[in-house]
């Protein structure tokens, strides 16, 4: 250790400055001369040099152990939401805010809370869009005479009949002939240049000519699966007619269509784009989408099979109540980016005012889909095909999901065969939908309960953090107490503490207010989040109650229908 006499003590500062290169020439000459004579100062100088050397070797940068950017990054994106600066479970809060914004866009009833909750619990989200298919946007119906002999029907299994006679393994088929499959038989119609139509069990099909003189299929009831190639030459649409509409495939592709004898049905498109036309309505259904056809109202608005049950429900309610503004608002409020095709299909069905609202929604969930705003007022059926094609093409990039679509198609076919007993059954469909809705609502409630727990935890954490901080204590007027408080925590020697205290008094005051402000803000935000969640819970509970009432009503209707039919049956029985 270097000891200095008084005189040399005065030189220490000069030596410090010499090392820091801060001396003027005169002082520099003086101290350099002194260093040659004074061993103590020389040692002090060299000690300092050596220390500086060691200090220079210390790392200026240290890489943190954990990935700090990762935790910062997420918070920057939520910059509008103050609460997200706190760590913890608060993404919930930001989601609620986001949904609020969505509500503003759609100007609908506050279904947003529900949707938030649902969104949080939905697991199955498949971006179902198709594989590439052939492009042609108009329905060209130049008639081309088909030769009946080109159509053949083959038995796949069981005992299908052709015009009431057992079907041989391969038969030619003529206009007006019926093919019927029972519980266990299947057949396939092979059409040269067009493709194959598989006929599932419990189906009844006839070959007929359409208005243009083209051979088509008439489905009385049952289920068919198509596998159609691109028609060569002119683009002649292949049509399947039903009691109340036409399923038209212009480009070739694959779909499953099931219908009961009341004219209610469902179509799932696996590949390509299919149009369903009936009662002045037209739906354009690209791959991955489902369309429900109702006996009276015709084709509904198509939707993704895996979209939220709430959205499906909203769509089906709209199909039955298309003039109801609440119904359309409900559809918009429940829509997400995977429901684009549905929203676009809605366009020709609504008034120009509502078209504008839908347009805003489409723009907000899929900014890459270009529909010129001016074209909205003219948006009709002719635009529909084109926009859906664009929409599908835009969503296609890099997607190879044929396998997913095939799996989904299989799932739907199993559902038709097992749950619907071979033919579309609206009751089974709505029951399942209600079940899905209930499950989702219950999951959402669970999720909200977790969010509430998270908020409680955050609150208690911050309460704990701040528990020793006396917000009511006024530093301005009681410096003695301030000092006393401070000394409890900081072990500085008296003199140093005094200096620190004088220097920093103002800062500590500001600091106290800043801390209090942050604490209050945080608590306010947490309270708000909690309120939002409670509102969402109420909304879900209300929806659950509504659902229960709806189901009860359906049960009652069913019972009353049974009561009406029973006496007739007994009459028939007694006649027999």
């Amino acid at each position, binding site marked *: *250790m*270097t000891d200095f006499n008084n005189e040399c003590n005065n030189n*220490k*500062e000069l030596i*410090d400055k010499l090392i820091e290169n801060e001396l003027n020439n005169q002082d520099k000459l003086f101290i350099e001369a002194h260093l040659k004579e004074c061993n103590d100062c020389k040692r002090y100088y060299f*000690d*300092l040099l050596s*220390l*500086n050397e*060691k*200090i220079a*070797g*210390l*790392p*200026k*940068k*240290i*890489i*943190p*152990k*954990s990935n*700090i*950017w990762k*935790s*910062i*990054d997420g*918070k*920057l994106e939520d*910059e509008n939401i103050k609460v997200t*600066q706190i760590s913890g479970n608060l993404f919930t809060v930001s989601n609620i805010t986001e949904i609020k914004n969505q509500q503003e866009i759609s100007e609908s009833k506050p279904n947003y809370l529900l949707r938030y909750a649902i969104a949080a619990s939905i697991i199955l989200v498949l971006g179902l869009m198709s594989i590439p298919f052939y492009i042609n946007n108009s329905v060209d119906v130049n008639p081309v005479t088909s030769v009946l002999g080109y159509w053949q029907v083959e038995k796949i299994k069981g005992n299908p009949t052709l015009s009431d006679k057992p079907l041989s393994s391969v038969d030619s088929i003529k206009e007006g002939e019926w093919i019927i499959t029972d519980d266990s038989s299947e057949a396939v119609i092979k059409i040269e240049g067009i493709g194959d139509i598989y006929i599932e069990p419990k189906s009844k099909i006839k070959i007929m000519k359409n208005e243009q003189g083209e051979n088509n299929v008439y489905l009385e009831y049952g289920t068919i699966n198509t596998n159609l190639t691109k028609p060569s030459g002119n683009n002649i649409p292949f049509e399947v007619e039903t009691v109340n509409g036409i399923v038209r495939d212009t480009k070739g592709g694959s779909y499953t269509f099931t219908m009961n004898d009341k004219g209610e049905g469902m179509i799932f498109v696996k590949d390509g784009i299919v149009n369903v036309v009936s009662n002045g309505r037209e739906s354009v259904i690209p791959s991955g989408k489902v369309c429900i056809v109702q006996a009276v109202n015709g084709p509904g608005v198509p939707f993704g099979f895996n979209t939220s049950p709430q959205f499906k429900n909203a769509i089906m309610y709209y199909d039955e109540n298309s003039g109801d503004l609440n119904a359309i608002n409900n559809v918009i409020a429940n829509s997400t980016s995977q429901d684009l095709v549905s929203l676009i299909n809605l366009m020709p069905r609504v008034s120009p005012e509502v078209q504008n609202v839908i347009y805003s929604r489409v723009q907000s969930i899929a900014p890459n889909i270009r529909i010129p705003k001016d074209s909205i007022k003219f948006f009709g059926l002719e635009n529909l095909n084109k926009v859906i094609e664009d929409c599908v093409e835009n969503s296609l990039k890099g997607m190879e999901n044929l396998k997913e679509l095939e799996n989904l198609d299989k799932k739907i076919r199993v559902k038709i065969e097992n749950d619907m007993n071979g033919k579309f059954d609206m009751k089974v469909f709505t029951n399942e939908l209600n079940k899905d809705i209930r499950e989702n609502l219950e999951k959402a409630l669970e999720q909200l309960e977790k969010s509430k727990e998270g908020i409680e935890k955050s609150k208690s954490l911050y309460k*704990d*953090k*701040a*528990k*020793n*901080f006396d917000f009511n204590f006024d530093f301005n007027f009681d410096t003695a107490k301030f000092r006393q408080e401070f000394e409890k*925590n*900081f*072990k*500085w020697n008296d003199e*140093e503490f005094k*200096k*620190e205290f004088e*220097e*920093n008094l103002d*800062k500590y005051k500001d*600091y106290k207010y800043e*801390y209090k402000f942050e604490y209050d803000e945080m608590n306010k935000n947490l309270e708000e989040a909690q309120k939002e969640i409670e509102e969402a819970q109420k909304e879900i509970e209300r929806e659950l109650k509504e659902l229960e009432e709806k189901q009860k009503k359906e049960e009652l209707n069913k019972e009353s229908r049974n009561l009406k039919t029973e006496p007739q049956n007994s009459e028939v029985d007694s006649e027999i």
Partner: protein
Amino acid sequence: MNEFDIVNKAKNRDQNAFKLLFKEYSPKIYAFSLRLSLDVPMAEEITQETFIKVWFKLESFRFESKFSTWLFSIAYNEFLTQLRAKTRLNNKHSEAEYLTYEKFKDVIHYDTNLDLEYAISKLPEKQKTVFILYQIEGYKHKEIAEILEINEGTSKAHLHNAKNFLKKELIK
């Protein structure tokens, strides 16, 4: 692109520019925070909170000082905030001043001169801060005065005392 441009871009909510600033300065802020706090999670939290505050307050930055000076001043205030919270929460003295050599070694997860770092860790908080800013980060006393809101003279005195203390500690 110089730092002025990057800061300007970040001011205009350019997250990529902000990430560049983060990449450049976060290891420095973390080093500063770790040496002051001697507590890895706390140093990480200080670094994180500093950059979040910078992002949210960047709009108010008017280039009246160097960006790094402003940044360190936010980090230092964040350190004080967390130190106060920690000491209040634990209702005991800051651990930073009383770490044993064994505990200290557990904290230091980087390659360095352990004896010197340990000696630095024993410095009183203000001296330590000035010492780190001057000797390690290379700030001038004028800038340190700005960061810590003290006089330039006080900064010089703290540095002088710090160096004397270190010399004594290392010779022991």
